[in-house]
């Protein structure tokens, strides 16, 4: 008989961005989601999503409300963290062209707005390396909006998805996953399922 895990609580950073879309995805998957705007909201959270949005605005709000330290502590305790688009920028250890890194939890260098302005936002299919135990790669439909690119993957992280031209758009370091696109607006549930499974596993 499969061991029954308690259901994890997933926090979604709600200072700005499309956090409601992520919460809807989690609820569709039967998981309790919690909006995170202040450090106290992180208490009892088993996993965290950093949504899409404007990374410059989110960065300021994270610093203003002292969220950087407690999020780092959450990662240190082994909680999985997913960052989409702006969220991936917040996770990176390096940001090209000068900006200071924010959370430094994912050993990659990202470039903001790497494809250009809005007219270069796009949709495409790409292959994402398997995240679950079966390790199977899957084709996923991805929407990129003024998206970042992962220009360098450091020794601690691993690229898990690239565009047809080879540009890297997702990377993973253990339980930290950063992706440049938006499964929350296409309704692709793969990464959310992964996050929930990791959070459940961490719960024991």
């Amino acid at each position: 008989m499969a061991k029954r895990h308690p259901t994890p609580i997933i926090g979604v950073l709600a200072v700005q961005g499309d956090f409601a879309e992520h919460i809807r995805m989690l609820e569709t998957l039967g998981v309790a989601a919690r909006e995170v705007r202040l450090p106290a909201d992180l208490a009892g959270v088993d996993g965290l999503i950093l949504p899409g949005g404007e990374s410059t605005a989110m960065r300021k709000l994270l610093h203003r409300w002292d969220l950087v330290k407690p999020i780092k502590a959450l990662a240190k305790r082994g909680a999985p963290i997913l960052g989409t688009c702006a969220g991936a920028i917040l996770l990176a250890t390096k940001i090209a062209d000068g900006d200071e890194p924010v959370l430094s939890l994912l050993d990659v260098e990202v470039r903001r707005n790497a494809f250009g302005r809005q007219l270069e936002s796009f949709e495409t299919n790409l292959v994402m390396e398997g995240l679950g135990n079966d390790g199977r790669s899957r084709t996923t439909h991805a929407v990129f909006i003024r998206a970042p690119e992962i220009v360098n993957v450091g020794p601690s992280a691993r690229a898990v998805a690239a565009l047809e031209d080879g540009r890297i758009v997702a990377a993973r370091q253990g339980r930290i996953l950063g992706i440049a696109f938006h499964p929350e607006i296409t309704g692709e549930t793969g990464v959310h399922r992964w996050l929930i499974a990791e959070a459940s596993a961490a719960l024991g």
Partner: protein
Amino acid sequence: MPAPKRAKTSTWATKSGLAQMLKGGVIMDVVNPAEAKIAEEAGAVAVMALERVPSDIRRDGGVARMSDPDMIKGIQAAVSIPVMAKARIGHESEARILEALDVDYIDESEVLTPADDRFHINKHDFKVPFVCGCKDLGEALRRINEGAAMMRTKGEAGTGNIVEAVRHIRTVAEEIAALKGQSEKRLRAAAKEMRVPYELVKLTVKAGRLPVVNFVAGGIATPADAALSMWLGADGVFVGSGIFKAKKPANTAAAIVQATTHWKNASILAEVSAGLGEAMKGIEMRTIPEGERLSKRGW
């Protein structure tokens, strides 16, 4: 480097998707690169580049048009957040120019003097996404049907008075609520009356909200005004004259950003509202003749 060759650009998902990324944020009117920097530094999610803020347009009178492309380029160079710009209602050519400038969103705006008294821009024909204003559900759905990927309730721009903004967002919500649970026959009648396809009405009623992101605009001057907008169900706020006509623009801008995030938290609202000095003076609605109300432009 641009999008990959085989990828699809300017799809509905990318157009409406950018607006989704702006949610919970503040879009600020700016008239030069220095103001754009202040807005970005305060935590704005985007800036609206225009030559004069609405309160100055109101004061100066005359015809208000699209901004000088050099000014828009200067602002694009100064900040890394999205840059929006305004075209006159129905002015296809101004919109084509803004598209050529690679702006991130075009606001087909009643704040500028309308160019066409019969037709709004056919927004489906453009690669760049559009945001449009509305006072009620019918106006919102007509704009969405024309291709708008984001809406904003109009309020009364340049007044620093939120009463019209509140009226407009309440009207949209009440009109959607009134259609809930109605028969197909009634919905078809409503669609006919609003001059939009039945499917669009059905989609809206099912979602219980507009089918695109909807911000509040027109008259927001304080952090409390931003919080009220969010409380009424807005996805985010536009602030025009309210920031750079305030005594302390940078502080006011940052405080409005904080209030938009923490709109449910009254003690944070109290904290960020303190010490901002004088807000923009503002205008009482009774003193503006009907013919001079910007929100009456567009239909």
